[in-house]
């Protein structure tokens, strides 16, 4: 059992990916992030490692990227996402959890960047935006299927399937 590896498999006909991400709600806002070179925003999270539960992935990614210990709640949504990225067909399963952060993590509602960190060669930036379809649209939030759903997610697991034939980011 030496070495960590991510559940991401490249095969001749396409790629399979397993991701987990955090929905962090606070006073009508939600935390989003992006790589500074990307035009689109996503929920904080990352790829699941082999042998790791999706909840543990979210805990690890929050610790690595935000430097705080998250309280991971229930599964809010599981999305089967089919898209093409950089000419490659992708089949992605993504698990979204409701997460609470400790009060020490900065909360700003003026749209400014509240946190930055490095992830390999990428610089990541985080901010809080209102949980509305309009605000998510303005930030080119992906996956787009969650723009309408995020404001309405409850504690019931929502199961969504999304087929996108045009080029799209993986987040």
């Amino acid at each position: 059992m030496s070495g960590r590896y991510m559940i991401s498999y490249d095969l001749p006909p396409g790629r399979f990916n397993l991701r987990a991400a955090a929905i962090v709600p606070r006073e009508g806002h939600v935390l989003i992030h992006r790589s500074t070179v990307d035009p689109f925003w996503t929920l904080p999270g990352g790829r699941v490692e082999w042998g790791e539960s999706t909840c543990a992935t979210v805990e690890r990614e929050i610790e690595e990227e935000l430097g705080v210990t998250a309280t991971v709640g229930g599964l809010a949504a599981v999305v089967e996402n089919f898209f093409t990225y950089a000419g490659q067909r992708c089949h992605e399963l993504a698990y979204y959890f409701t997460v609470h952060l400790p009060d020490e993590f900065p909360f700003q509602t003026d749209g400014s960047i509240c946190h930055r960190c490095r992830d390999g060669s990428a610089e990541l930036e985080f901010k809080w935006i209102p949980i509305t379809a309009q605000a998510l649209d303005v930030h080119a939030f992906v996956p787009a299927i969650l723009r309408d759903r995020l404001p309405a997610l409850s504690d019931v697991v929502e199961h969504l399937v999304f087929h996108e034939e045009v080029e799209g980011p993986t987040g």
Partner: protein
Amino acid sequence: MSERIVLSYRHGVRRFNYRVAAVIIAEGHVLVCREDDDDYVQLPGGRVELGETSADGIEREIAEELAMPAEIGPMIATSESFYRAGGEDYHELSFFYRAHLPGQGPDGNWPWLLRHDEGHELKFYWVSLKEDALEAISLLPPWLPGFLRQEPAAPVHVIHDERAGV
């Protein structure tokens, strides 16, 4: 993605598996399947293919395994399982769908149906949801009997970890 690629990968002893299964209940009995000489039974189902939705996967698996008309209902559970079997460590994702076989149910035959699929002998049984009949026939994964007897109204997320020290 015309080529069929099953979502099951092995790195040394570490295997990742992505499965779908059907919860088919009729007259207080659930349909289970024994493959070859396994000392346990599972719900009907199989591995999802690359590029295939889980819903299409269960429809295909039911068609292949049972070869009879089926109505696929909602997803009722998604699970992540960590266990050891056949010398391999498994990290397995599963989606469970409610399904219905019109006009079919327990008829007193044991097994109810004998099929052959991909070189395996499949024996199907209708097993009572009452008492511990599902445990007695060793339905896996082990959280299923309790779940099936008290199926929640909304989909649930189950993490089942058999690894030592967890």
